């Protein structure tokens, strides 16, 4: 089993969910996170948007102006069988790729064991 861990744009979550459900991977975990990548972001644009009042000063805007300068993203993770990894990775890349920096990253991490809490099924049985 492998854990596919993707950091993607906030507005792509719905389409990623649909695409993965269609490809036969309905289960996943998703949470809000902040982060930064290799490239530095030009914040002067965002700053001017906030000052002109075109962008509401929401939590994400606050995060942009704070000193650590992190960008809000979604942390999307699911555990799949070894043979399905390439399919999941391809689905996520196809849906999320805009060709611009900041689309995110995908990491594949080995999972040694898994259990289903309800009935104690283990490993591949517990994720299928």
């Amino acid at each position: 089993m492998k854990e596919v861990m993707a950091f993607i744009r906030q507005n792509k979550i719905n389409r990623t969910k649909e695409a993965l459900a269609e490809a036969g991977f309905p289960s996943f975990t998703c949470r809000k996170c902040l982060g930064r990548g290799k490239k530095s972001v030009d914040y002067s644009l965002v700053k001017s948007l906030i000052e002109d009042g075109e962008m509401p000063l929401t939590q994400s805007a606050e995060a942009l102006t704070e000193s650590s300068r992190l960008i809000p993203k979604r942390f999307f993770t699911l555990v799949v069988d070894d043979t399905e990894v390439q399919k999941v990775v391809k689905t996520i890349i196809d849906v999320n790729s805009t060709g611009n920096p900041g689309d995110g990253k995908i990491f594949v991490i080995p999972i040694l064991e898994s259990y289903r809490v309800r009935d104690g099924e283990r490993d591949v049985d517990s994720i299928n």
Partner: protein
Amino acid sequence: MRFTQEVTYMLLVRAIIRPEKVSIVLSELLSAGFPAVTKMDVFGRGRQKGLKIGDVFYDEIPKEMLLCVVRDEDKDDVVNVIMRNARTGEKGNFGDGRIFISPVEDAYTISNGKQGL
């Protein structure tokens, strides 16, 4: 899309640290040459079973989790930077946090589909 296998060893560094130490750790990681990092709010307790203040017992202490994936050879640098800067006082205290390292088999950049870091 074709995926080519690239033999590099990558590691996921998961550091759970004090929220007030996040900004110093982030800026030190940046100046050490590790800009890419993700931050999450988490709650948890450690080996001390939480905190007891007076009669009140706190076992869900707010912490921040930093995630970053680095090359094998950079692991010690990243761990040292986090360890040095997330510590409180000279010798450190309970509750300064923990760092976990796990292997990463593959990494993809979504914008161009390239494999590797």
